[in-house]
């Protein structure tokens, strides 16, 4: 069964109709930002309160927060490639305490729901973060960034279904807020990992995070360009991979999917929905235009109205698309 043959998804048309539902949140449209690709606080310094008046996303996902403050990687942190980039930012952030003190009050002023993205290097750390945010009603949902090693097992938390299951099982009881597990694309089977997360109570999954990549200094042969050695590839260059992984995960889980990876316009957002996503996140494209999210949302609404397709109730399991590449 190909996506068009799926039982048509009854529901409310996006444009002009009632607001979109995602994890019980009321979203004005199905476009949110990808974690780490929009800093609403810095953007407000650059653009002023116009940012609040015309906020480009239907929800705001903050950059990954860790328990302790992190400086991030030494520069250079960016490399441009064909239709994309590599970043080796290294998750700089003020740590939980700094976030709660400085960022949370400012982010609470945003006109959209706030989703906090967290990461820990042990299950215990992730649990501490989840528990800490569980108490804050400004926080609408939590996203778990599992693209990092568990220092206790040596495994990437999100690359192995058992590792992911154990993590979700550990943190699930710590909050009633919706938990979104952000999958890593650098693994054999994102579908298996997503199914494991769902089985342990994840409310949604999001994908893809960046693909591991590397570049060399063009002027100093043999020297890696990025301060961090390697980094993560994002942008249009990864869109085809993202669509394939979203389709693979859709075939395995019922929970809603936040699809992302290289989305630049409404047609591509529509493709992401057809692959199986319920809402779409825009990342790298925001670097080219801070209002990209709003433009994608407008183009998507037009494209869906035009094609007569309406997004439906989230989480209907669909058949896999053949992959006999």
């Amino acid at each position, binding site marked *: 069964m190909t996506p068009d043959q799926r039982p048509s998804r009854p529901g409310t048309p996006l444009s002009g109709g009632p607001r979109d539902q995602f994890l019980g949140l009321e979203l004005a449209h199905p476009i949110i930002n990808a974690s780490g690709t929009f800093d609403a606080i810095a953007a407000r310094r650059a653009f002023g309160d116009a940012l609040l008046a015309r906020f480009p996303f239907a929800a705001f996902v903050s950059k990954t927060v860790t328990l302790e403050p992190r400086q991030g990687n030494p520069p250079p942190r960016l490399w441009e490639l064909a239709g994309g980039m590599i970043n080796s930012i290294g998750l700089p952030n003020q740590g939980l305490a700094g976030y709660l003190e400085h960022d949370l009050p400012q982010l609470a002023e945003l006109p959209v729901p706030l989703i906090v993205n967290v990461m820990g290097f042990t299950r215990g750390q992730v649990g501490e973060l989840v528990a800490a945010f569980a108490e804050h009603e400004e926080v609408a949902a939590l996203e778990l960034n599992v693209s990092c090693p568990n220092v206790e097992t040596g495994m990437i938390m999100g690359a192995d279904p058992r590792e992911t299951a154990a993590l979700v099982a550990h943190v699930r009881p710590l909050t009633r807020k919706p938990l979104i597990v952000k999958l890593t694309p650098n693994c054999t089977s994102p579908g298996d990992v997503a199914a494991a997360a769902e089985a342990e109570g994840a409310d949604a999954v999001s994908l893809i995070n960046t693909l591991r990549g590397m570049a060399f200094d063009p002027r100093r042969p043999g020297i890696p360009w990025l301060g961090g050695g390697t980094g993560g590839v994002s942008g249009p260059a990864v869109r085809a991979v993202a669509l394939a992984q979203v389709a693979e995960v859709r075939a395995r889980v019922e929970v809603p999917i936040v699809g992302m990876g290289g989305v630049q316009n409404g047609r591509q957002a529509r493709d992401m929905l057809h692959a199986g996503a319920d809402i779409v996140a825009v990342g790298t494209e925001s*670097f080219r235009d801070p209002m990209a999210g709003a433009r994608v949302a407008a183009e998507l609404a037009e494209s869906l109205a035009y094609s007569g397709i309406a997004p439906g109730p989230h989480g209907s399991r669909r058949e896999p698309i053949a992959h006999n590449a």
Partner: protein
Amino acid sequence: MSDRTLAPLGRRLCPVVAHARHGAYDVVSVLDEGPAPDPGQFYMLAASERWGGGADERPFLPRAFSVLRRHEDGRLDFLFEDVGPGTRRLCELRAGDGLWLLGPLGIGFRRPEVGRRPLLVGGGVGIAPLAIWQDTLGADAQVLLGFRDARHAAGAGLLRDARVATDDGSVGHHGLVTDLLREELDGSCVVYACGPPPMLEAVRARCESAGVPAQLALESGMACGFGACFGCVVPTRSGYVRLCVDGPVLDAADLELVA
């Protein structure tokens, strides 16, 4: 009150109205309806057509440029030197082409304290923010510029009454702009500098030992220009700062070293 002129939210498409060559540099003028930038602020630019398909299938991201000059009618001039696929494409722009523009961004130069004599020191494409700063400061500001050779020194014509040094001695002083700085610097100065890192570091070190305040307009690779990517950090005495929102002009006192 904000510490900067705010940018309109979202990139805007501006028509290119003129192009001119000045030796090694291209100056491209666009008509913009945004606010007047503070001298030292910058814009993220991308050609509206064919931004891509150059060397290594680039550019893809927009590029950061200081504004060279703003005219009364809202015309903005930018100065480009072809050093890669992005600048190459921008150098090709001609009247009638379209340019995506986001800005003004970042924090520009801060006015001299009363009694301090502004000394503007620059080199290469670093002359761009000094030109608009000179336009603002007026005749008080003395300008010292360094270039590789005569072809590049043609850029000095974009400022008024600049003293010039060239590496090859073909124009002005045969040597470094810091030689000129040594001659002109005294304790009553405030130095505003923009240029390649080794020049900035020499300026910083000299001002430090002379006990003179300096503001340095730095460069770093940028993806977004508005604090979104955390890619443009430079090390300061208080850790990494994002040059696009906390700079590009930094107080020399905050820097250990320009590298």
